[in-house]
């Protein structure tokens, strides 16, 4: 492997890991509620911005990170309680539009509470790049990739090994049946909003040292994360992760080997090609159709 290839690979994996985390957040909420939560990018923004401002106010990094995750979870729960829950009888499309409104509101509040400037955070393990077989990588990239891996593992364990996780899966499979066996669907939905907010916030605070942050970084991330979800298959956690990584790698490889002018186009072409062959996305076939 040439050092150039490794450089592109690391870049693609880092960016892809972030898309994967955003996509995972989409998936959790979609599974519990059929809603595609377009405020997912805002959770990422809150994660980055609150960490930056809490750290600037003198909090040590772990506490600032905890404050950021807490703020995002509270925002997620409020979004569910104040916007989604009151409209629970409405069609998913209506709820999706509500989340877009929620995203705009959160972005607006962030503009006032914080500011409109870009902010940075020092790397958790310094900013001195390390040499990986000829590729030059900032240590923060390992935090992002490792953090994403740990979260994916925890989420998988949560769904497969805990009663609560299974309750979420049951709600996803059939809401009425879940209610009949005594699962409080409303609690499950609140839980999924809280969890996906936490995942988003962790993604946000992990990437800020690399990508910088501002009140409006969420828009682009939500778009790319959503593309990853569609590519991987709506509703599949494995698909979300695969979709995110593929999208990130496509962008980096296209920028490296084809042309940086067309890197987004290449990523989206791959997506269209996959969807033509597999209309439900890479991992979508296993998903049960609900009528």
């Amino acid at each position, binding site marked *: 492997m040439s050092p150039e290839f490794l*450089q*592109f690979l690391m870049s693609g994996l880092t960016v892809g890991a972030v898309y994967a985390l955003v996509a995972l957040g989409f998936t959790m909420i979609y599974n519990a509620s059929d809603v595609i939560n377009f405020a997912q990018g805002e959770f990422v923004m809150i994660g980055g911005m609150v960490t930056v401002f809490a750290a600037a106010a003198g909090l040590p990094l772990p506490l600032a990170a905890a404050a950021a995750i807490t703020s995002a979870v509270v925002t997620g729960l409020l979004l569910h309680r104040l916007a989604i829950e009151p409209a629970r009888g409405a069609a998913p499309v209506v709820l999706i539009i509500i989340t877009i409104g929620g995203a705009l509101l959160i972005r607006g509040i962030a503009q006032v509470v914080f500011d409109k400037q870009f902010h940075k955070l020092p790397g958790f393990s310094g900013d001195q790049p390390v040499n990986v077989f000829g590729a030059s990588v900032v240590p923060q990239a390992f935090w992002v990739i490792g953090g994403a891996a740990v979260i994916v593992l925890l989420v998988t364990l949560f769904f497969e090994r805990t009663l609560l996780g299974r309750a979420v899966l049951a709600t996803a499979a059939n809401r009425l049946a879940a209610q009949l066996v005594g699962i409080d669907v409303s609690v499950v939905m609140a839980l999924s909003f809280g969890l996906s907010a936490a995942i988003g916030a962790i993604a946000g605070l992990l990437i800020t040292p690399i990508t910088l942050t501002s009140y409006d970084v969420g828009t682009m991330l939500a778009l790319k994360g959503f593309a990853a979800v569609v590519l991987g298959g709506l509703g599949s956690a494995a698909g979300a992760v695969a979709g995110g990584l593929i999208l990130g790698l496509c962008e980096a490889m296209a920028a490296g080997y084809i042309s*940086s002018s067309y890197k987004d186009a290449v990523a989206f072409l791959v997506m269209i090609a996959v969807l033509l062959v597999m209309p439900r996305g890479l991992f979508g076939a296993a998903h049960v159709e609900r009528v």
Partner: protein
Amino acid sequence: MACEKIFEDLKKRNLTKIAMISGTDGFGKSMRDECVKVNARFGIEIVAEENYGPRDTDMTPQLTNIRGKNPQAVVNPGFGQGPAIVTRNYRQLGLTAPLYQSHGVASKQFIELAGEAANGVRLPAAALLVADKLPDSDPQKKVAADYAKKFTDTAKQPVSTFGGHAYDGLMILAGAIQRGGADPKTIRDEIERTKGFVGTAGIFNMTPADHMGLGLEAFKMLEIKGGDWALAE
């Protein structure tokens, strides 16, 4: 004009093979086009050209390709946070050729975002950024220093050239109204007659054909040293 200033500096340093990495936003694109128009006149060859989207978060693939072409200098026409990420990625990849940014990053925020990586970056910008470092003989010294003081006292943040441009524009307009009254036509004519107006961005000499009124000497070549602006010459 920014390109000409950069190319002039490159020529002085005998750097003739350059690479460009441009933002695809309006500013980056139009400056890139200007650069490609004038590079031959300065005997400068562009050996590699890359792009990045205004919201991109990682430019290492593009810079890896640039590194492979061994340019003697790299120019980054861009605006906003993109150039800060380019600068950080540039140092991450261990590129050592001089890096030129544009007046699109002429605010302290760029230095803050790029951090250590910003040191050594050169850019053409208005004298305002180095108001306190201008020689006393410089005709802009007083205007720039007064504006810088007023701005930092009021806004409690470091000056950027962007606010300076608005200030110059307002002063030119005010001057035109004072001379000719508030009739739209005379305002226009008086603005076009503005000569020798000393602003934060340079000394303006307007004509009916030239509505910018600045010459190449209005740009100072700055270098970022120890996290602050310094005059490169």
